[in-house]
């Protein structure tokens, strides 16, 4: 069994006549964290979507294990409560976990039965983050995981990432803010090319 969770070979993507990235070789093993940085519009999200299998318009090859994708869209239904959303997500991933414990971990204890529409942006984000604790994918693809979160929330995200890395998972994360975890590789997109 190969230890590589994510491998890309000669990944290249063009969008609207601009080359976002070319000849990209990524190799990410267990316990490794790759952070991709770059100005707005440099292709961070597109790269993550390529890798996640949500953007087919690229050249090259991507090989990835079962992955969890946390994008700009939260992936929670605002008409449902936090608990109902996570219950649905459990069904989707085929996992069984203790939803109340998961919600407590992301600091949403006491809000289990509130319809997500009534929660603040940061709280909705936290419900979205709870997905990280439910899905047992070894590869995490995170697009701006710190958006809309307060300091405690950001600490929560870095804590989750550290734990995941410590248990042999891999993290591929696009971010503008510095991430307070042991970053193994940094990839810079766009800018001065």
């Amino acid at each position, binding site marked *: 069994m190969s230890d590589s969770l994510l491998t890309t070979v000669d990944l290249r993507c063009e969008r609207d006549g601009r080359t976002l990235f070319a000849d990209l070789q990524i190799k990410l093993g267990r316990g490794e964290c790759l952070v991709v940085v770059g100005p707005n519009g440099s292709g961070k999200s597109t790269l993550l979507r390529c890798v*996640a*299998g*949500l*953007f*087919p318009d690229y050249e090259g090859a991507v090989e990835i294990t079962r992955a969890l*994708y946390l*994008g*700009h*869209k*939260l*992936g*929670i*239904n*605002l*008409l*449902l409560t936090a608990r*109902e959303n996570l*219950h*649905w*997500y*459990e*069904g*989707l*991933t*085929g996992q069984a976990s203790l939803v109340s414990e998961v919600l407590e971990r992301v600091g949403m204890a006491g809000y289990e039965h509130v*319809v997500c529409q009534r929660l603040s942006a940061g709280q909705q984000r936290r419900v979205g983050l709870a*997905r990280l604790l439910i*899905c047992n994918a070894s590869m995490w693809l995170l697009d701006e995981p710190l958006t809309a979160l307060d300091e405690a929330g950001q600490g929560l995200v870095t804590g989750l990432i550290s734990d995941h890395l410590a248990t042999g998972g891999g993290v591929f994360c696009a971010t503008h803010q510095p991430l307070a975890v042991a970053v193994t590789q940094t990839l810079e997109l766009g800018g001065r090319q």
Partner: protein
Amino acid sequence: MALRLFWIQFHRELVSVARSKEEALNPLLFMFLAISLFALATGGDPKTLQTFAPTIIWVLVLLANMLSLEGLFRRDYEDGTLEQLVLLAEPGFVPVLAKIAAQWCFSGLAMTLLAPVAGLILFLPSTILPTLMITLILGTPALSLLGAVGAALTVGLRRGGVLLAILVLPLYVPILIFGVSAIMQQGNGITTDAQIYWLMAITMISITIAPLLVHAALRISVEQ
């Protein structure tokens, strides 16, 4: 496993509908408003209304169903749950089928149950009402299933309404023809077995193929 996936998705849809009732009631409201307009416009002449009642009911069921289909995947597309569904659900057509089934409960099934009322407003003889209900309950699942393919293809577009109609209405035509002609023939005392079998066949084919097509179409829609 697949069954559990179906029920979880089905339950989720029902809860969503329960929290946004007006969305679910709109198509039914539209159907009954339009039917009363027909009744008013003909001056309440029973003979004319009776002749056209099957056509009016079926056409309105068709349009009302399309109205509710437009929103079938819209919310999920916008909040990102559709991405998760496409990426994670295994097999992916199961939750898709559950979504369509839930949509049908609030369109086709509800319209079938209310059809006798519509029939009475339009002076349809009560002996024909059972046939009306049978054609509706056999034909409307196909409407939802085929329409969902169009809805899945157009969900990524800002204003997909007209395109959805152009895509889907031609597929609805056979169902409309068999549905109406069954009721007409029943009125003339001719056996309606052929039309009923045709409606069943169309629904069976749709339920076999449509969920797979919808899943493929959704994948195309979220890949951007």
